Structure formats: structure tokens, C-alpha cells
């Protein structure tokens, strides 16, 4: 059988199967599309607003009321409750009815009027990491606004001119610039990172399923034909993976275009380069699944392996918790995972505007490893085709 013919026959055979199997077609078309849409929808707000906090105002002064007004005016915060004592505060925090409580001490206004330092206490719930860090930032900026006002007033009273005051208050100003994604928009940061992670799981699953199904259903010899060679099997495998690859790449492409252009976000780097990398990354994920099935000869084992490798890939990918802070061996595992390399490339283009040649090597590596995996599958499948006693493993 010619190599091209092996490709075409296998692709046609798979397409005919997909037409009959509702589930298998769904898992490479509308289910991924729906899952990706769900992830985007989850983060569509971009930045959480109006997180509920409480106050424990023990001062009841003009200053304390002003602080509460400042906090209420911060878009990230919503002062929903006022508590009378610390018992109520503890109960409310335990129930997570509010994510933080700002406690204003009884002598707050008096201290400020006498020119002594005053301190407010923010009790926050660090068990909910994102909530707590957003609230800390916003409360600090509200307190900072009040603090600057108090200091300016005091200096003006001493007779310093306003401009000189601003400079002498902070002789060296730190201008903190967050390059790339300065507003920390979670839609652009987290949704964009999670969608490829999700497609990675679905693609390796599809690779394992497409090949493993033939082994489970004892149809592998029928698929590969009687005179399978290395070349014909490798191309037959490519033909078989064509439909899942097209389906998942299409979903990925739609998702990325929607996230960027569809939402009016123009990433500083190259969207085309990211799409090229995504298609390669999905091809590699499919090849990983195919190799897992060819090597274990069991669909079920291959799917378990898929779960083990791809489900925690996001946790190891360095997006949430940075690679450089992981233990050496965990970092080593992370570096072996293709998601880690893909997502670095995507971040470089979507956020950092890094020139393309900085990531050319990782893209080439993804393609190279995918090719090697496909080539490795061929002899494994051929050997399996010749041994009917190993078929049907579950």
C-alpha cells in the first residue's frame, strides 16, 4: 500500500466512524467548544469588583467615616456590614460572609489630631488567596489616600507650600510599572492560559482514544491492513489523527481569536505565531495520547496516563506559581511537560511582545517531539497488529 494511500484510507475510515459515533464526534467538536466557552465565561468579568468586606469602627469620628467612604468608593471593595465587636467579626470571617474586616481603633481621630501615628488593622482571609490580595491592595490604597490628605493638611498648617510639600514627603518616588498586562486583567491572563491547558487534556484524550479504541475493539489489523510497514503505519496514524486535530485546532483557533480580536484586545505580539504554536502543541498532545495507547495496548491505561500527565499540567506550568520557586525535581518534571513550553511562548506573544526568534527553538522542539512520537508509535502498532492475543485489553 502506498504511503499516501495509507493516509487517505485511514482518514476516510476514521471520518466514517465519527459519523456513526455520536460520543466520539462530540468529544472533538462541540464538547471542547462548550468547555472553552465556559472557561472564557467564568473570567469574562476581567477583574473582580465589589468584593464584600466589613468594618469594625470603634472610633465613630469624621476621620473613620471618611476612611469608610474612601473604601466604599474603591471599585474593588464593597463595605457590606458594620460590626460592633470582635466576636461578631470572628464569626463573620469564619463563615466567610465577608472576606476581610477593617478595624479602626478607638483613639484613631485623636491620634491624628495630636500628630501621632495611627494604625488601622485589616483582618483578611488568606485561605482565599486572590480575594485577599485584591482586598489588601485596595484597602491599602484607600488608607494611603486618607494618610496623604492628613499629612498634607498638617504640613500646610506648618506653612509649607503645597508643591514643595509633595516633593519632600517622598523625596524619591517609586514609579511601579507592571510591564505587560498592567491592569492584571484575568480574562487576558488566566482564561488565555487555561484554554490551551484544557485543549491539551482533550487532545491527549482524543489521541489515546482514537488509537486505543482500535486495540480494545480488536480492529487494529483491520485498520493497518495486512502488509503494514513502518512508513505505511506512521502515515495511517497521521490520517487517523487528522480529524481530531482539525476539530480541536479549529476550537482553539476560534477561542484565541475571540479572546483577542473578538474582545477588542490587541496583544502586543504575534497572534499568528501563537496559533501556529497552538496547532503544533495540539498535534504533539494527540501524538502523546497515541503513543500512550500504542505502548500500553490498553485504552483504559492510556487514558489514566493521560489524566496523570495532562490534568496537573497547568499547576506545573508556572502560570500560577512560578517555575523558579519549585523544588528542583518538580521543576524538572515541569520542564518535561510540553504545556510549560507552549504557555511561555504564548505569554511572550500575548503579554511581553518578545521577538519571535526567542521562541523559535521551543516551537521547533514541540514539532520535533511530535514527529518522534508518531514514528515511535509505528513499530509498536505493527507488533501489536501481528499479535491478536494482546488485543482487547481493558
Amino acid at each position, binding site marked *: 500500500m502506498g504511503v499516501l494511500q495509507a493516509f487517505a484510507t485511514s482518514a476516510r475510515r476514521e471520518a466514517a466512524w465519527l459519523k456513526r459515533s455520536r460520543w466520539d464526534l462530540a468529544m472533538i467538536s462541540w464538547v471542547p467548544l462548550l468547555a472553552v466557552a465556559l472557561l472564557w465565561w467564568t473570567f469574562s468579568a476581567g477583574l473582580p469588583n465589589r468584593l464584600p468586606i466589613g468594618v469594625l469602627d470603634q472610633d465613630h469620628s469624621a476621620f473613620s467615616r471618611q476612611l469608610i467612604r474612601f473604601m466604599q468608593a474603591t471599585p474593588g471593595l464593597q463595605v457590606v456590614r458594620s460590626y460592633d465587636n470582635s466576636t461578631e467579626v470572628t464569626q463573620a470571617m469564619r463563615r466567610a460572609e465577608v472576606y476581610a474586616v477593617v478595624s479602626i481603633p478607638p483613639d484613631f481621630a485623636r491620634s491624628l489630631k495630636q500628630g501621632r*501615628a495611627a494604625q488601622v488593622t485589616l483582618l483578611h482571609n*488568606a485561605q482565599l*488567596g486572590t480575594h485577599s490580595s485584591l482586598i489588601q491592595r485596595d484597602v*491599602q490604597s484607600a488608607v494611603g489616600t486618607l494618610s496623604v490628605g492628613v*499629612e498634607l493638611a498638617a504640613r500646610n498648617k506648618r506653612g509649607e507650600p503645597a508643591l514643595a510639600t509633595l516633593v519632600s514627603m517622598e523625596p524619591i518616588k517609586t514609579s511601579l510599572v507592571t510591564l505587560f498586562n498592567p491592569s492584571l486583567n484575568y480574562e487576558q491572563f488566566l482564561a488565555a492560559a487555561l484554554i490551551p491547558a484544557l485543549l491539551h487534556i482533550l487532545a491527549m484524550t482524543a489521541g489515546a482514544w482514537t488509537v486505543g479504541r482500535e486495540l480494545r475493539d480488536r480492529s487494529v489489523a483491520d485498520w493497518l491492513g495486512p502488509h503494514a510497514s513502518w512508513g505505511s503505519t506512521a502515515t495511517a496514524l497521521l490520517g487517523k489523527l487528522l480529524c481530531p486535530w482539525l476539530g480541536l485546532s479549529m476550537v482553539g483557533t476560534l477561542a484565541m481569536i475571540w479572546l483577542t480580536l473578538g474582545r477588542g484586545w490587541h496583544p502586543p505580539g504575534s497572534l499568528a505565531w501563537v496559533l501556529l504554536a497552538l496547532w503544533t502543541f495540539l498535534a504533539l498532545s494527540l501524538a502523546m495520547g497515541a503513543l500512550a495507547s500504542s505502548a500500553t495496548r490498553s485504552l*483504559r491505561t492510556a487514558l489514566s496516563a493521560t489524566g496523570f500527565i495532562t490534568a496537573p499540567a497547568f499547576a506545573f506550568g508556572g502560570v500560577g506559581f512560578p517555575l523558579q520557586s519549585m523544588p528542583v525535581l518538580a521543576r524538572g518534571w515541569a520542564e518535561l511537560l510540553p504545556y510549560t513550553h507552549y504557555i511561555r511562548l504564548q505569554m511572550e506573544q500575548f503579554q511581553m511582545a518578545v521577538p519571535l526568534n526567542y521562541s523559535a527553538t521551543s516551537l521547533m522542539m514541540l514539532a520535533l517531539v511530535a514527529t518522534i512520537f508518531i514514528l515511535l508509535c509505528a513499530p509498536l502498532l505493527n507488533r501489536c497488529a501481528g499479535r491478536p492475543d494482546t488485543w482487547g485489553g481493558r
Partner: protein
Amino acid sequence: MRAKSSVWRAWVDTLKAIAADKGVLLLIVIAPVIYGFFYPWPYAAQAVTRVPVAVVDLDHSSLSRQITRLAQASPRIDVRMVIGDEHQAQHALWRGEIEGYALLPRDLKRDVLRGSLAVVTVEANGSYALLNKAVLSGFAEAVGTVSAGVEIKKLQASGQSAPQAQAGRNPISTQMVALFNPTEGYGSYVVPAVALLIIQQTLLMGVAMLVGLWAETDRHRADAATWLGRILGFSSIGYLSGLLYFGWIFWAQDFPRGANTRGGLVLLAFYMPSICTLGALLGVWFGNRERALQVLLFTALPMAFVSGFSWPAEALPEMLQTLRWLFPSTAGIQASLRLNQMGAPLADVAGYLLILAALSTSAGGLLLWVARPAKS
């Protein structure tokens, strides 16, 4: 009497069936143990320290060197290079060698001495939130310390006492107190919540796989008593892995734990049946052994982010705020964090337990109907 004995028999048969099936055994007994150590692994250090950064020093003065020295002393950042060219820093940032840099401008010292405004620009990589935070705060502390020193000296020169000068400089300060997860570790924030999801996903897939095999071979149909026994059988194994996490893994990883131990035990008794009935229902629907893995593997990711522990539920679209309760993990995670980590009394999580009970009964009712015994 007969019903009671068939519950008991189904319970025993289910445990036997699990033990005899190495695929199911791997999923619902071994996988939770492995994940319990594998998942927290990258977060072992808990905090982000010594992030590589650069200092671009265009001033070469005693003041700029003082800022550099203080930055070098900060535990958050690690000054890898002190250079005189911003382009070089930009390239190092692209190559991933550094995650941010501070730009000390020419004439920094002169401006400060003359009393005109001097600005130090700190640029950090916002694509990675934790690195960004470490770089910004590491440099801000170093510059702030030098700046405060300059200002206090000036205030003292104008005749104020040191504490007065200190108070005048920053009249209101904020003290941050983390009431729960006091070390603010990353692992101890993520893993206690994800643990509930790991338990759910392994159990859900295991149950759906075994019931899927029964449905494939048409052995699944049974009366209510038998189904009750089966669900209890699956739940017993799930309960054990729940105990493994609450009791041992949280302890072995030194996460906040055991704030309301008895409450945690009650929660597991509600959580497991809701997962198992849902799993059995899915298994009947799939009617195929391996389908459970194919369809459920990817679901952990979206479920984690609608559960409300990392992405605030307040920020979810309204419809999703309702739909998310269909996953047992949502109520499970919320209740578990309150009980195990925050120490809420059981009464405070009654609503979540009620949701889990409602999931069990509705999925159970549906199961009894779709998998009712065939009419003979």
C-alpha cells in the same frame, strides 16, 4: 428484613467488584494517594523568594549604590546584574533571565539633594502575578527605605523629634493580619481546596467506569435496596480517601487543618454519596467502561474555577453563580475550607450540606428510575 440484607449484600459485592477491577482500583484507591503528594509538589516552597532581577544604574552615585545594596539584601529579589544600559535589561527580560528591573535615573542624587522630585522606575513582568508582586514590592521596599531616610533627616533638620518625624511622614499605617492561612503560603491556599476536587474526580470516574461496564454488559439494573448498597459501597471507599486527606495529607504537608474535625467528618458523609450517585448516573448514561475517562478527564479544570476558592464567585456571570452548584465540588470545597481551615461551626455550613443532600436525592431518584429492574 429482606431489603436490609440486600443492601448489605450489594455493599459487599460492590467492594468485591472494586477490588477485582484493577482499573477502578487504580482510580479510586491509588490515584488519590499519589495525587495527594504529586499535586502539592510544585508548591513545596510555598512562597516566592529570590526572584532574579537587574538594576540599571545610570547615576553611579553613593545614593544609587545604597539603593542597590538594599535591593540585594531583600529576600524577595535576587539582583543578578547591575548594568548601565536599559536595552540589556530588556533582552534579559525577554530571555527569561530576569523578571524585572529598577531604573535609577541619571542625576538621581542631585535631584534629591536639590529637593526636586526624583523618580525610580521599577518594571516588572505582569504576565506572572506572583513574580510581579515580588519584584515590585522588593524594589519598592528598598527605594522606600532610602527615601524615608532622606525625608526623616530633613524633618529632623527642621526641628522635629525622630518619632514625630516618623509619624508625620506616614500618619496612618495599615497592619495586615491574615486570619486564616496565616503564613499566606501558596500551597496551603490552593491544595486544601483542590483536595476536594481530586477526591471528587477520581471517585466520579471510578464509579462511572465500573457502573459503565455494568451497563455495557446489562448488569446494572437493580432495585432500590441494591442501589443503596452499591452507593454506600462506593461512598465507603470515598470516605476513606477523604479521611486520608483531612487526617494525613494535610498534616504531612503541614497545611492549615483540623479546625473543626467533627464537622469535617460530617461533611464527608454528605459529600461522598452525592459524588457516587452522580457517578453511577453518568455510568448508566455512558454505557461504556472507558467513556467515563474520555468525558470526565477535562472537567476538573472548569470545575475548579467556578467553585469560588481562587476566582471570587462574585465575579462569575449570574447564571454561572447558580449553575455551579450542580457540581458537588462547589459545595464541598466551600464547606471544607470553612470547617477544616477556618473552623466554622457545623451550623454555618448547613446550606452547603443541604445542597449536597439535594444532589444525592435528585441524582439518586433519577438513577433508580433509569436503572430500574427490567419488567419480567
